[in-house]
């Protein structure tokens, strides 16, 4: 487990940058995880509810906040009292106890050290065969994470990905892979609305590509105002869900960023004036006031930022002119402190995190091709595309511990985007 953590969470001291000291040759400091940073947690055995426990066990492991102790079934009595002494000898600090009640389950968080119940709450659950069952269990898990850490987990989230030019949604644990767009269409750049109700994407046609707003509840897709002509791509919602920023090609060969009021389907405005450069891949800061984006104004694509009205443009991610590889696919972190993106090192893209305040980088990956990072709503997990297993798959890394897992999907996967947390209304 410790070995899995040391896998190259590399920190690069990036400033000051000098031409003879390109950032990919910078100082690398390995961050080694020590077991103490993750409290040991055990899911207490009990009667029934096997599938609930299985989902919770995996969610709590995937949260990367705990070392989840494996427990052989029947290894402890499932009586009404908890054998704190037994779990203390296993080194467990927390025990999670799940029992049936009339409407669903009652979950208790035991503090093993003090032998007390720290928190308990009933959670209504739909029938196991109902479509909302897994998501409801994921929400239970996210709440347990909040009880311990103060921050909810991200199990009750989904990713949207492209497989063979079709958009799919998939739960954060890899379950329930469901197509969103029909097989007859080619789509690009799928992105969630902040409320999880819509996925916006480019419908890729001959010589044009409107952005479609796809209502997941009805399955109906509506063309976004202002995207009728030309190729419109890399849509991104503002955090309040009212604006959609996107890139649009023109007939002079340029690409520029526009924004439209997507709630009222009006008010198209242009945010960049490229002339001799392309501007694309906008991503809003969580306060909605800044937009990071890709611009080719230095020759190669690099990461810039501007106010959401297009003013006050500046270079965001430092680079060495003529030495640094192309940098693309920025995504602003949910806490606003960082921007993740990928940058080519020896012609292979690698995932970087830029700390916005200090302008320092962390290079997260170094083996294979790793691209298109997208943040989980907790601002600590990142999903990205990697070919390290031989074909392009989504991998999820915990930036705190360096733990990494593959979201196994059947096809070649690209352009993932992670949703925000889903409310109870989502199936």
């Amino acid at each position: 487990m410790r070995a899995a953590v040391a896998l190259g969470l590399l920190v690069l001291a990036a400033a000051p940058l000098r031409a003879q000291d390109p950032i990919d040759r910078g100082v690398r400091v390995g961050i080694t995880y020590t077991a103490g940073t993750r409290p040991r947690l055990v899911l207490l055995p009990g009667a029934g509810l096997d599938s609930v426990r299985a989902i919770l066990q995996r969610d709590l492991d995937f949260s990367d906040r705990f070392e989840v102790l494996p427990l052989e079934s029947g290894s402890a009595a499932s009586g009404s009292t908890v054998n704190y002494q037994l779990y203390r000898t296993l080194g467990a600090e927390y025990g999670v106890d799940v029992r049936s009640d009339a409407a669903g389950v009652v979950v208790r968080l035991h503090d093993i050290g003090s032998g007390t119940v720290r928190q308990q709450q009933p959670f209504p659950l739909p029938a196991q065969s109902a479509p909302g069952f897994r998501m409801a269990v994921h929400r239970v898990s996210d709440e347990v994470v909040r009880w311990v850490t103060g921050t909810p987990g991200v199990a009750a989230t989904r990713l949207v990905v492209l497989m063979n030019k079709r958009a799919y949604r998939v739960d954060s644990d890899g379950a329930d892979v469901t197509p969103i767009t029909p097989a007859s269409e080619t789509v690009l750049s799928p992105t969630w609305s902040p409320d999880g109700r819509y996925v916006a994407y480019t419908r890729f046609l001959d010589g044009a590509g409107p952005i479609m707003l796809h209502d997941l509840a009805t399955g109906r897709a509506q063309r976004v105002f202002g995207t009728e002509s030309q190729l419109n791509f890399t849509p991104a919602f503002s955090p309040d869900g009212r604006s959609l920023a996107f890139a649009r090609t023109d007939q002079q060969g340029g690409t520029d960023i526009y924004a439209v009021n997507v709630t009222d389907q009006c008010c198209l405005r242009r945010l960049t004036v490229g002339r001799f450069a392309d501007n694309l891949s906008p991503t809003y800061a969580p306060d909605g006031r800044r937009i990071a984006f890709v611009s080719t104004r230095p020759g190669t694509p690099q990461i810039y930022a501007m106010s959401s009205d297009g003013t006050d443009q500046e270079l965001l991610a430092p680079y060495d002119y003529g030495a640094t590889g192309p940098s693309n696919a920025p995504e602003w972190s949910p806490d606003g402190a960082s921007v993740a993106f990928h940058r080519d090192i020896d012609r292979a893209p690698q995932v970087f995190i830029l700390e916005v305040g200090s302008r320092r980088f962390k290079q997260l990956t170094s083996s294979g091709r790793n691209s298109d990072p997208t943040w989980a709503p907790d601002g600590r997990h990142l999903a990205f595309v990697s070919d390290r297993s031989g074909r392009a798959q989504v991998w999820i890394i915990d930036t705190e511990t360096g733990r990494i897992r593959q979201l196994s999907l059947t096809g070649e996967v690209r352009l993932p985007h992670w949703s925000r947390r889903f409310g109870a209304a989502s199936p």
Partner: protein
Amino acid sequence: MKSRSLLVFALLAAAACGGKKPAETPAPAPAPAPIDSTAIKARMRQDSINAAEARARAAADAAARAAAQLQAQLSAEVSAMIHFDFDKADIKPEDQANLDRKAAILKANPGLSIQIAGNCDNRGSDEYNLALGNRRAAAAQRYLINQGVSASQITIVSYGEERPVNPANDEAAWAENRNDQFTPTAGGNNLMAPK
């Protein structure tokens, strides 16, 4: 003497008539058909017409073949791809003759419109490649306009890395896939060769 011979002949003939089957006599040769000079002239005329028509047909066939060949050649010249270096949108010197010929054909055929589609290999970023493809299409468009082609004859699109000519993943395939493709959208038939 003469009358005696006639008599004998008459008797013999009488005997023949009255008795058994007379000996066969050769049928008189048919009179040669009267020479119809009008028909001969008509036939000769027809023959010469047929020959002339065959010659004309052959000539027309040859001309049609040549015209079709020319059309095919002009179409191929209009459609011939140009190629780009990695992450570049600059017209290469070896593609200038190709584009010069396109410009000449477009100027000789004001009714001809083309769409230029810019394409990329799959190594760059997926979404950046959409912008790069558009720039590649615009590079050829700009070159043609600088050669005097009317801007109204050209539209540009980008397919990014979405429509590779060669789906393989090696240097040769990547080089093939970094291209501009040229497709007539109107007036692509009966092209006039440039003077």
